[in-house]
């Protein structure tokens, strides 16, 4: 599965690119304030008591793209927190993200969390969870997730880029995937990607040739054409100080192609399940240094093909033909 997936991780044509506009809200909830909301949320989750959370009137909660009541979903089992904790904050947009390990009834889970804080009254208006459970049907190694200092290191002034540029760079990753090329995407030569705790590019210890390659070298092969579309792209959290962008997307594999042609002209089979209608719901965090993608930390879970990922609240109507 791992190699297959690596051989897959690419995308093609985006129907809709949603760039969550950073509303010109006053950054009246700074990084410590935003991270405090995450801690408050996690404490409430462990206590199985959401009653004290400062929720906005129309707050929404989604878990793996599904709107649930607080108290349902991950709020059902007994939850304990693990040791891996990665925060990222966007004071301008009032958004904060968190990747971490938890346990549900003793079962390891990787948690991706996004909160939106209403700037005016400091209440939580959006809660979005990606829960990567061991029973999801894809590989996950939560025990391998360890702190990587690069994700919480501030960039130097010369390494920084404006938020629009950070989003543009993150989006070029998906554009490159769909097109099956490295030409669209500014990769650092040492770019490494970790998915569900598993290193899937730039792993010198791997037996898989493609997993040993850096992100850019992988893209250069053209293997990513297996992913036919990267849909419902959102970029809700932009941590300009640290060069981080959280993107939430869906990879669709239409199942139309049994083989793809790599850039070197060689034919490669599309292996199951990617030769059948198949989608991944993905939270993907990019670290961009000096305008180049340096690290990617992703949470990936299979979902029904074409599933609406839950934001905004109402899915646009689809036409059958």
């Amino acid at each position, binding site marked *: 599965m791992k190699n297959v997936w690596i051989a897959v991780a690419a995308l093609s044509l985006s129907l809709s690119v949603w760039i969550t506009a950073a509303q010109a809200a006053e950054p009246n909830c700074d990084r410590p304030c935003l991270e405090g909301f995450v801690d408050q949320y996690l404490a409430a989750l462990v206590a199985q008591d959401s009653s004290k959370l400062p929720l906005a009137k129309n707050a929404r909660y989604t*878990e793996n793209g599904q709107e649930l009541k607080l108290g349902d979903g991950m709020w059902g*089992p007994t939850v304990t927190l693990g040791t891996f904790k990665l925060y990222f904050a966007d004071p301008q947009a009032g958004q904060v993200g968190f990747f971490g390990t938890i346990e549900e009834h003793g079962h390891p889970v990787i948690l991706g969390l996004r909160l939106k804080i209403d700037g005016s009254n400091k209440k939580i208006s959006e809660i979005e969870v990606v829960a990567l459970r061991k029973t999801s049907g894809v590989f996950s190694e939560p025990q391998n997730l360890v702190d990587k200092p690069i994700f919480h290191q501030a960039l130097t002034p010369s390494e920084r880029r404006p938020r629009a540029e950070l989003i543009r760079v993150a989006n070029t990753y998906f554009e490159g995937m769909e097109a099956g090329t490295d030409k669209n995407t500014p990769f650092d030569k040492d770019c490494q990607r970790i998915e569900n705790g598993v290193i899937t590019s730039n792993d010198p210890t791997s037996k898989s040739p493609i997993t040993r390659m850096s992100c850019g070298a992988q893209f250069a092969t053209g293997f990513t054409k297996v992913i036919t579309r990267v849909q419902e792209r959102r970029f809700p959290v932009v941590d300009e100080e640290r060069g981080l962008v959280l993107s939430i997307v869906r990879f669709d594999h239409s199942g139309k192609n049994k083989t793809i042609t790599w850039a070197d002209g060689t034919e490669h089979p599309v292996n199951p399940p990617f030769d*059948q209608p*198949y989608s991944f719901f993905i939270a993907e965090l990019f670290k961009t240094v000096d305008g180049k993608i340096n690290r990617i930390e992703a949470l990936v879970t299979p979902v*029904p093909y074409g599933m609406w990922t839950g934001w905004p609240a109402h899915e646009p109507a689809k036409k059958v033909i």
Partner: protein
Amino acid sequence: MGVVNENGHPQILALRLKIENRKISEMEAIVARSGGGGFARPQDLVDKPIFHEPLAADDHPSREELVRIANSYFEGLEKATGKLTPFDPQCTRIENGAVTANNPDGKGMAKMTCGEQFDTGFSPFITHVRERRYPIVDEERGLVYSIIFFDHAGTITNVKWTDGTDHKVSPPFDTPYAFLLGELFKIKNGKIMRVEAVLLNVPYGMPSGWGKKE
């Protein structure tokens, strides 16, 4: 319900069509694929004549009664009892090609008939049978096609059966987990004789896309 090949991979398909003015207005497919973490045994699916045999002339329940009986199956699951559901003593259930009730070659629960299973009270970990629909009622053959979700909220880690024994709830059912099911009931003489189901795991709480989300 049938078996199809997608790029050479056998898959189980449950298809519902609505025809209005001899034109197709609704298409609802449930596809149980063996890849990507699902489970399906399409190779084990064979024709069962009972599903296309008409009921006897003196056995003609109303469509409302057929739906009521099908619904009692889900009521029995939610309430963990065999008392609500009229089962034939030989009721057999097949899920994605696997015989999961009244299987003489099975072990444990699979050996029991549907009714015997329900009588154990095993099912409280199925916390909600959600968005129940009964879009097709074949009165001539005594068939009801239901489409539902089984939600497992992950709140229950232990079930006490009706015989007083304790049973640990195994993963993934002790964490939030859901199935989408297309479930076909054969009802004869007012009792459920056969259940043929196509199911796949889906994100917990997912709506069906048809009707109002609960």
